[in-house]
C-alpha cells in the first residue's frame, strides 16, 4: 500500500496533474515518470501531458516494451493470448451468475422501502454477491498463477532486460504518474514487469484507469452500455496500492447517479470501500492510510445519493 498518493479524474481536457505533482513533491523540479500503457499504440502521444507537467517527464513506454518482447517471444505471446481467452470465458461465466444474484438483490432494494424483513434479505443477498466477487477474483488470480508457473515470465531474459532498464529509469525519478486508458492492458503490462515492486512506496499520482489498476479490485461499469448487461462487474484484483477505494472514472457519463437504486447497488456492494466518482477536477489524496479530498470531489453514499466528500 502506498503511503502517499493522489488520485484524479480524467486529465485530457482540464488537467490538474501539475498542481498534484507540486503538492506531492513540493519544491523540487526533478523528473517524473509516466505510464501511458493504457493508451496502447498511442502510448507515445504524450505531448499535451508533457507540456502541461512542465518538468522533465520520462515515458516508461511499458506498452511498447511488451510489444517488442511479444514479437520476439512466440511462446510468451501464445501464453498471453491463451490466458486472455481463458479469462474471457471465466468472466462470461461469472457474469451469468452475477446477473442472477444482482437481479434479485435489485428487486429487494426496489421493493424493500424500509421493511425490516426485506432489509435482512438484502443484507444476505449482498453477502452472496460479495462472495461471488471474491470467488471470481480468486479464480482469475489462479489463471495468473498458472500462467506464472508455466511460463515463468519474470525469469525470461527479454523481460529481465526491460525490467533492469525500467529500474534504472525509475531510480532518479521523484514521482510516478499512471495515466488512464484500457485498464486490462495497463494492468497486465505493468504486471509483467512488476512495476509496483520496482517503484516501491514512493509518491504516485494516478488517474482514471490508472487509479483502477492501483486499487484493490478493478470494477468495470457502465449504467447504459449500448448492449449487454449494465451490472458493474469485478475484472480482477488490482495492485492493492489504494486501500478501500473503488475508482469510478467518467462517472458523469457512465453512471446514472440520479437513480438511487443504482447508486445503492454500487455503494452497498463494495462497502466499506469508498466508491469515488472520478470526474474532471476530482482529487482524492492518500496520506498514511487516510483519505482526504479536494472540494467538488464526490462519492456514492449508502443511502443512494451522491455526496460531496467531507475533508
Amino acid at each position, binding site marked *: 500500500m502506498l503511503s502517499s498518493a493522489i488520485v484524479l479524474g480524467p486529465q485530457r481536457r482540464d488537467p490538474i496533474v501539475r498542481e498534484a505533482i507540486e503538492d506531492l513533491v513540493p519544491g523540487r523540479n526533478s523528473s517524473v515518470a509516466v505510464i501511458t500503457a493504457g493508451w496502447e*499504440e498511442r502510448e507515445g502521444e504524450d505531448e499535451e501531458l508533457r507540456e502541461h507537467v512542465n518538468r522533465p517527464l520520462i515515458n516508461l513506454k511499458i506498452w511498447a516494451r511488451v510489444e517488442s518482447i511479444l514479437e520476439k517471444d512466440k511462446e510468451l505471446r501464445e501464453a498471453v493470448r491463451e490466458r486472455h481467452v481463458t479469462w474471457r470465458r471465466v468472466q462470461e461465466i461469472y457474469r451469468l451468475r452475477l446477473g442472477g444474484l444482482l437481479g434479485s438483490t435489485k428487486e429487494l432494494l426496489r421493493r424493500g422501502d424500509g421493511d425490516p424483513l426485506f432489509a435482512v434479505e438484502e443484507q444476505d443477498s449482498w453477502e452472496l454477491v460479495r462472495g461471488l466477487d471474491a470467488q471470481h477474483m480468486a479464480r482469475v488470480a489462479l489463471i495468473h498463477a498458472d500462467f506464472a508457473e508455466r511460463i515463468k515470465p519474470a525469469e525470461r531474459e527479454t523481460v529481465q532486460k526491460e525490467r533492469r532498464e525500467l529500474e534504472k529509469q525509475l531510480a532518479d525519478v521523484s514521482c510516478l504518474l499512471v495515466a488512464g486508458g484500457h485498464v486490462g492492458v495497463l494492468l497486465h503490462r505493468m504486471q509483467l514487469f512488476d512495476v509496483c515492486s520496482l517503484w516501491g512506496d514512493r509518491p504516485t499520482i494516478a488517474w482514471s484507469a490508472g487509479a483502477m489498476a492501483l486499487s484493490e479490485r478493478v470494477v468495470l461499469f*457502465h449504467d447504459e452500455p*449500448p448492449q449487454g448487461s449494465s451490472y458493474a462487474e469485478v475484472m480482477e484484483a488490482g495492485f492493492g496500492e489504494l486501500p478501500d477505494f473503488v475508482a469510478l472514472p467518467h462517472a458523469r457519463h457512465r453512471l446514472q447517479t440520479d437513480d438511487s437504486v443504482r447508486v445503492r447497488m454500487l455503494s452497498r456492494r463494495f462497502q466499506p470501500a469508498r466508491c469515488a466518482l472520478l470526474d474532471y477536477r476530482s482529487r482524492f489524496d492518500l496520506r498514511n492510510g487516510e483519505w482526504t479530498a479536494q472540494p467538488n470531489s464526490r462519492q456514492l453514499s449508502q443511502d443512494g445519493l451522491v455526496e460531496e466528500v467531507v475533508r
Partner: protein
Amino acid sequence: MSMLERLESALAGGPAAIRAILGEVEFPHVEGRNVTFLFDGEADEITLHHWIHGLPGELQFRRLRRSSLWVLQIDLPRRSRMEYKIGVMRGSRGELVRDPLNSHLARDPFGANSVVYGEGYEPPEWTVEDPEARKGTVEERHLDSKVFGDWRPIQIYRPARFRETRRYPLLVVHDGLDYLKFANLQEILDNLIHRLELPPLIAVMTQSLDRMKEYAADEQHADFIVKDLVPQMEDLLPLIREPSARAMMGASFGAVASLSTAWRHPGFFGKLFLQSGSFVFTEIGDHDRPPMFDPVVKFVNKFRKKPGRPADQVFLSCGVYESLIYYNRSLVPLLQETGMQVRVREANDGHNWENWRDRLREGLSSLFPGPLWHVYE
C-alpha cells in the same frame, strides 16, 4: 380538457382563439398515447396516409363544425415513430402533402414524409454529428466486377486515426449510399467509435444497379460480394482476414441479399445484421406480394427447409408496425436452431430508414463490441 375539446371550444371564440392555440401548441399534439393531427384548409376530404401495418391505410379527418379545421385523433403507443402524409381531396383532385404544421421530416430515396414521435421517443443523440468525435473519411471508388462484368460504385469508410499498419474488421453494407444519406451511417460510425462502443472498423458501402433483381437472393450477387468485393478490399485495405472480423448488413431486400449471400457461402461472414428483412415465405399456395418477390420466396422457402449455419452471429431488427414483422419473427427460432448466436430487437416503428438508423447502435455494437467496458481515459 383534451386537445380535441380545447379545439372545439375555441371554435366558439372564432379565428383568434384558434390562432392562439396554433401559436401555443405543436401539432400533431401528443398527450400520452393520444395523438391529435390538425389540418387547416378548405377541402372536401382530408385523410392521413401512413405505412403502419394493422391500421386502416387511410384515416379520415373530421371537419370541426363548418370551419376549415380538420382533426384526427389516433392511439399511438409510447416510443413510437410514425411517418405519414396528408391526403387533401378538392373536387375530383387529390394530392398527398407533408403536414404543414409539422416540421419533423423523415427522408428516404423517394423524398420525405412528415413524422410524429409518440410519447417517450426522441431521435437518439448518437445519430447526429458530435463535434467532439474525430471524423472518419468516405472515399468513392469503382470496383471492377468480374462476376457482373462491369464497374460497381462503392464507398469506403475509414475510421478516424486510420493507420495502414493496423488491421481492421470489415462491415459490408447493402444499399450503402442510402445508409449514408438517410440513416447517417458515417456520423454514427464516427460517434460510436469515438465513444468506444465500436472498435475502429472499415465499412464498404455497395449500391446495386438493379436492386430488386440482385438483392432478391441472386446467386450472382452473392458471388460478387464473396469473390469480387471482399478479396479486392482485402488487397486494398488493412483488413483482418477472418470470418469473425467480417460482417454484412442490409435492410429490406438488402437483408435478403445479406442472408442469401451468407447462406450460399456459409462461414465466409462471421456476422450478419438483418434489418426488416423481406423474408416472405409460403407454407402453401402462392404469396400475395408483387412478382419481384418470387425469387425471395423461393429462397426463404429453401432456407427454411435447410438453413445450414450461414454465420456465427446474427442481429435481427424489425419494426412492429411492418407487415414483415410476422416473417421476421418466424425466422428467429429457425436461426436459433442453427446454433448461431441470435439477438433480436423489435421497435415501435415502420419500414423506414429512421427505424433502421435507430437500431444501428445496438446492432453494430452487439456484433462488434467496442472497448468501452475496459477503457477509462
